[in-house]
């Protein structure tokens, strides 16, 4: 085991050294220049949109470098070692062949990590310099349960599978959400942020109404044990929620405004209220209620994201790095796949195979969409189902859109990505190890 670990370390170190001496850092430099130029040249309707574009550009630059190098670097070195007969000398030493492959993989990931950190630092600095601020990243908790409230105060559980609730008719009806696992100490000043985004339409067809008075209250605890309910105050910096002329909507009231689901920026598109510490039970649970106060509007509440509770999610740099680590998980899988191909085939096939897997993995969602089309024949359906089952989904962890929407990338997302892509990586590495072990030099 000791020899194995030392061997992996030695091959990983020589991989990093080779990558740097073969001037792979030039690719990082080019990506950095793209980030800088984009930060200053990208046009958009307002500063907020420009900021989003800048963040997307940084993430795209990181993603591009990570994918490209993960496909090219490890497999290129492996083919060079096999074709140039460097492998004679390497495998005459007490270096297990799987250890060699793991060393190459580790080294490539090390190089990519350096690139991710460098580009994240450069991108964050560019954003801070160009926009004189960095986006406020938010880490959100979503409700574990929701109920519909009638005008008489009766609570009815929303059936599983129902994605939205439309509140209309007599006022006084609403929605109740239950949350758990919220932090109870070291909260920011004023408490946690409650973010609310609903769709508002006129109750009568043809009437153009896009706002509706409502109250939002909360009580500590969830389920049967709920404490005293209190109105949640509107955050002074909330993008909306006040009445005409930006005045207070009414005592304990907020003005809901229509926001459709295409708008995804937590800082711009969600009303922000404050959830003080005393409204969170000691077990981290709380119950929040939205009550509609006007019958002239229909308020539609979405299960997925109408209400979230947010807390500061770290700096842009930290989130870019965590986002990069999510991308790195998929890069590890791509690298393992190309190493497998590199053991059994030539470099051209390796590159083609790596790119094919990448592109195929990026269109899994379109395959799923195709399956929903009724006229798909049974054999094609089976084929597509098999493709969905075996193809890694590169769209599973959306980093760029998330970061652009000021949503933090938590460590749990990083762990989830590594768990998901790690299975594929381990599978490809095991196959590559077996193939290399059987290979005669």
């Amino acid at each position: 085991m000791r020899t194995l670990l030392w061997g992996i370390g030695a091959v990983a170190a020589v991989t990093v050294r080779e990558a740097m001496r073969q001037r792979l850092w030039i690719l990082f430099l080019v990506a950095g220049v793209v980030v800088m130029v984009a930060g200053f040249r990208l046009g958009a309707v307002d500063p907020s949109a420009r900021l989003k574009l800048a963040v997307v550009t940084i993430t795209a630059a990181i993603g591009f470098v990570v994918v490209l190098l993960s496909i090219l670097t490890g497999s290129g070195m492996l083919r060079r070692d096999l074709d140039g007969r460097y492998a004679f000398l390497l495998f005459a030493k007490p270096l297990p062949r799987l250890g060699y492959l793991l060393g190459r993989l580790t080294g490539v990931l090390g190089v990519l990590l350096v690139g991710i950190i460098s580009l994240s630092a450069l991108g964050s600095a560019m954003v801070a310099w160009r926009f004189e601020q960095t986006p406020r990243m938010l880490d959100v908790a979503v409700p574990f349960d929701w109920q519909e409230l009638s005008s008489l105060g009766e609570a009815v559980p929303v059936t599983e599978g129902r994605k939205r609730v439309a509140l209309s008719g007599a006022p006084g009806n609403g929605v109740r959400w239950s949350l758990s696992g919220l932090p109870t100490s070291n909260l920011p000043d004023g408490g946690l942020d409650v973010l609310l985004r609903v769709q508002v339409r006129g109750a009568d067809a043809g009437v153009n109404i896009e706002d509706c008075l409502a109250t939002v209250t909360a009580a500590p605890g969830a389920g049967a044990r709920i404490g005293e309910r209190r109105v949640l105050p509107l955050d002074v910096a909330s993008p909306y929620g006040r009445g005409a002329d930006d005045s207070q909507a009414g005592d304990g009231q907020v003005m809901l405004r229509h926001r459709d689901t295409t708008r995804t920026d937590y800082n711009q598109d969600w009303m922000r209220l404050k959830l003080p510490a005393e409204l969170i039970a000691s077990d981290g649970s709380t119950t929040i209620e939205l009550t509609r106060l006007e019958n002239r509007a229909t308020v539609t509440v979405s299960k997925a994201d109408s209400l979230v509770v947010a807390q500061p999610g770290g700096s842009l740099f930290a989130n870019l790095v965590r986002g990069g680590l999510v991308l790195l998980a998929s890069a590890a899988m791509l690298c393992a796949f190309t190493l497998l191909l590199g053991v059994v085939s030539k470099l051209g096939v390796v590159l083609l195979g790596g790119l094919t897997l990448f592109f195929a993995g990026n269109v899994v969602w379109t395959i799923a969409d195709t399956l929903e089309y009724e006229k798909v024949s049974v054999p094609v359906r089976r084929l597509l189902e098999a493709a969905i089952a075996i193809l890694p989904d590169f769209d599973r962890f959306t980093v760029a859109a998330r970061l652009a929407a000021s949503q933090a990338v938590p460590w749990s997302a990083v762990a989830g990505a590594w768990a998901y892509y790690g299975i594929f990586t381990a599978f490809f590495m095991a196959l590559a190890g077996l193939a290399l072990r059987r290979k005669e030099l």
Partner: protein
Amino acid sequence: MPDPVLQTKGLTKTYTDFWGRPRVTALKPLTLDVMPGEVFGLLGPNGSGKTTTIKLLLGLLRPTGGDAFVFGRDPGDREAKGRIGYLPEETYLYKFLDAEETLAFFGRLFAMPAALIKSRSDELIQLVGLSHARKRRLGEYSKGMARRLGLAQALINDPSLVILDEPTSGLDPLGSAEVKELIVRLKRAGKTVLLCSHLLADVEDVCDRIAILHQGTLREMGRVDDLLRADDRSMVELNAPSAEVLAAVRAAAGDSLLGVAPPRERLEAHFRRIIAEASAKPPEPKA
């Protein structure tokens, strides 16, 4: 009697095509033992199966038939490999590393501690005469310099068995002589050396025993002295004999005399002497 360091029993290798059909038999049943402390020469022309034999002994190829043992273990055994130093026929070293980094890399493959790698590297770089180029990348090395470093990497782990495949390939006569001296020193240190070469003079100078392969078949094996001794001839060496003495020798030998001539210095010895003399005194200015 000690156990052999290397042992093959009917070792055979047939290369096959993609479909597993036999293409060429590179090694026909080979049985030999190499004992501890021995310098064993594996001779043969190109394509005779020397390198195939070495690859089989290093576990780089799988035998088609027969068995091979290194220190009594299978050739692929990691513990056995940890006691082997190997110099391949060509120098396959990374060109982006310098001499120190190369030796450190190979030292780490043997799980050697950093301090030991450092001291061994210093010692070996000096031994192979690369002290002046230790920080230069291998891409800038001449073929001979790379060969010397290849030899150093083969010794980084202080191996008990050193396998040298054409060690003097690419070296100038001085370098070749140094390698031969090194092999003799390794033997004195109790190491076992398997020397694979088609330069017969090199082998004759340093090997205890040799095996001659031809087209994958073992043609001859034995002690160098035994194989080369001509029992039906004798050699008489005289120091500055006069014409009379030579005439007397001729007369005494009669019809059995094959020839009388002054002995010739070997070209390698002559070359080394000239270079040594030239190095000892500064060049005289030409008129």
